[in-house]
């Protein structure tokens, strides 16, 4: 198939990755990046908003051609769809209320690097000591959920939320003690929490989170995947991704090799 046109879907409600403006148009990091990528791939793109829950089945049903929704590249997802190379890779971290006894836990401000399945990391063991008997909130069915279950499942109570935003509200309400998620997402969420929340413990980076966030396409559309992968490569190379990232996240999320 000759790709001159493609439909890209995103949720439109996951600020600042992607969001909807009051006039109904889409904005945020991903829509602006998409514009650049499409230009470079010489594809005429249409952006449509759709619900997160049905996104991957709908892609495979053919409702649209590309998913661009902070979609982490994981083994499970690779079974059903294909990914481009990543255009972003973000660290993850714990968050808690500023006035909580858990604030400023050991390692706060530092960064540790982890690989999949890695155990015996001393920073994590220190956290386990501090978080014993506490309640940790995560978004269901994410790579972060798996990490928390693997490392804290035996010492803390884990509560799964449908969305990160719900979890943040409960963190403010005091129903849970800690949250664990994408640090970039958190940094943005803290702004609307009126300074009540903050990071605690070290930032965690590395291949443990997979390769990062990439565009999802149907397995059959390898040519489309390759076109976008090329475009991403060039956008990373000339710093376009970094610029957009600084604009929307105030940090650089471009994947580091």
């Amino acid at each position, binding site marked *: 198939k000759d790709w001159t046109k493609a439909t890209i879907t995103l949720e439109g*409600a996951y600020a600042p990755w992607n*969001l909807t403006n009051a006039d109904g148009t889409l904005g945020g990091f991903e829509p602006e990046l998409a514009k650049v990528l499409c230009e470079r791939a010489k594809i005429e793109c249409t952006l449509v908003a759709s619900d997160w829950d049905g996104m991957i089945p709908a892609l495979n049903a053919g409702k649209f051609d590309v998913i661009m929704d902070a979609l982490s590249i994981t083994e499970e997802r690779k079974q059903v769809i294909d990914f481009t190379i990543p255009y972003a890779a973000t660290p993850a971290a714990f968050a808690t209320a500023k006035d909580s006894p858990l604030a400023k836990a050991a390692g706060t401000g530092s960064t540790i690097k982890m690989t999949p399945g890695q155990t015996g990391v001393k920073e994590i063991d220190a956290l386990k000591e501090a978080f014993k008997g506490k309640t940790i909130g995560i978004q269901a069915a994410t790579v972060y959920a798996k990490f928390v279950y693997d490392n804290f499942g035996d010492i803390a109570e884990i509560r799964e939320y449908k969305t990160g935003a719900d979890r943040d509200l409960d963190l403010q309400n005091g129903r849970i003690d800690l949250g664990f998620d994408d640090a970039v997402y958190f940094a943005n969420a803290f702004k609307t929490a009126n300074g009540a929340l903050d990071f605690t413990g070290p930032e965690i980076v590395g291949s443990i989170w997979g390769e990062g966030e990439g565009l999802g396409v149907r397995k059959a559309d390898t040519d489309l995947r390759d076109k976008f992968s090329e475009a991403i490569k060039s956008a990373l190379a000339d710093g376009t991704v970094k610029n957009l990232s600084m604009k929307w996240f105030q940090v650089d999320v471009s994947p580091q090799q």
Partner: protein
Amino acid sequence: MASLELLGFGSTGWGALLILATLMTLAVTATALAIGAVLGAIVAGAKLSGNPFLVALGNVYTTVFRGVPELLIIYLIYFGGSSAVTAIGKAMGFEGFLGLPSFAAGALAVGIISGSYQAEVFRGAFLAISKGELEAASAIGMHRAMRFRRIIMPQVLRLAIPGLGNVWQLSLKDSALISVTGLAELMRTSQVAAGSTRQYFLFFIAGGCLYLILTSLSDRIFNGAERRANRSMPASAMGQA
């Protein structure tokens, strides 16, 4: 207050989108109710037919679509329907995707659910028609079709109005679940606005209020229709606690 500005109609206000979404909810619910009316009438007819096969079929329909959570039915129709349409398209030689648009899939799903409730409403209304009045129609020589048109239909419609009001109310709220298809109806727009601005309570309360406005408007319409249809009923039989 900055938060109230978010609900306004200015460049940063979501007022216009919310109003549009309310109209979308109204449109999708009305379409669903119309689809449901057709299905409901057919299913009610089957259940009243006396033919054991049709009766069983009607029972299966009403049991399944009232017994399975609406969300599941919407998913099954949204994805299942799309796959089916695409498969049919392929078989007929069309390339690519021919999926159901969100509006059609949503209205169809809620319509099918609403049909199972409307079938019971119509059946109840039919059974409430006085047997004597039907006999009186036979006794002056009306044939089946005429009896249906002149005596049964007008009374079924009248007797069904309160029940249809309830079904409308149910469908209105079922339509909130269509948000999973990405259709920009009231529920989804509230969620998107909440997620984009991070003003969750503001937009959920605003959404709830808009639903209440829809409810009270439709209540008024159905009450009016009921009053009109009940002109022929004694005043004392109505509105008494």
